[in-house]
């Protein structure tokens, strides 16, 4: 197999990198956790926001009206 200095250069940079890879991995995992949290929050609240907008659009729902008529029930 013929020599390929480009691959050797890649190895050289990898050796010089030392432990920085682990630090970057930690930061990356922190980002992944943050993205997970944000997407969970979005999943949780988007339907509620949708229903609020729907309610604003259509006025009070039938159950709200019934509750107002019979406040003690």
């Amino acid at each position, binding site marked *: 197999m013929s020599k390929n200095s480009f691959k050797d250069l890649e190895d050289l*940079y990898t050796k010089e990198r030392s432990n920085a890879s682990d630090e970057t991995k930690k930061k990356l995992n922190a980002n*992944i956790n943050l993205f997970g949290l944000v997407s969970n929050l979005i999943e949780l609240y988007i339907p509620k926001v949708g229903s609020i907008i729907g309610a604003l659009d259509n006025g009070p729902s039938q159950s709200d009206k019934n509750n107002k008529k019979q406040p003690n029930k």
Partner: protein
Amino acid sequence: MSDEEAVEQYLLTQNVNYFNLLYDRYTNKVYAKCISMLRDAEQAEDATQEIFVKILLSLSKFNARSKFSTWLYSITYNFCIDIIRKGKKEIIVSLEDHTKVDLEDNGIYDAEIMETNVFRLKEVLNLMNAEDKSILLMKYQDDMSIKEICGVIEKTESAVKMKILRAKERFMKIYQESYGQSG
């Protein structure tokens, strides 16, 4: 497990271990490209992190028709070229040379370039512009085919062949200016 299977499993399960598998496989390769392109260890480390965040956010767009590595390297090179462009208005020579493309990549200089002393290679690459450097890395370090390079830089096959040939010529010119005879 192949890279493509790891991507598929990550998208299905959102289990971070699948993403970490890809990170462990490619982090040093991505870093090596970043430092080759950016020439600064700290900047290369930051770029590596940002590239993986970018990858994470766009994994769902990954098209399994291409290799994961090709897609990852494509994002890496384009990311680095963007940083260089933003940092110093480098004049990037247009890939669309207006001369008629009638040149074939006949392997000219291949052996000489690949067998260059590694420290000299590092120096010569540091003196090259970002676009020439990235195309040589794609060809010699990543073993990308002409077709794959076309996909990365979004140019025609003839434009890519022309670009490789020109990059090799410029490499040899810089080498000879710096060290005299090749080797």
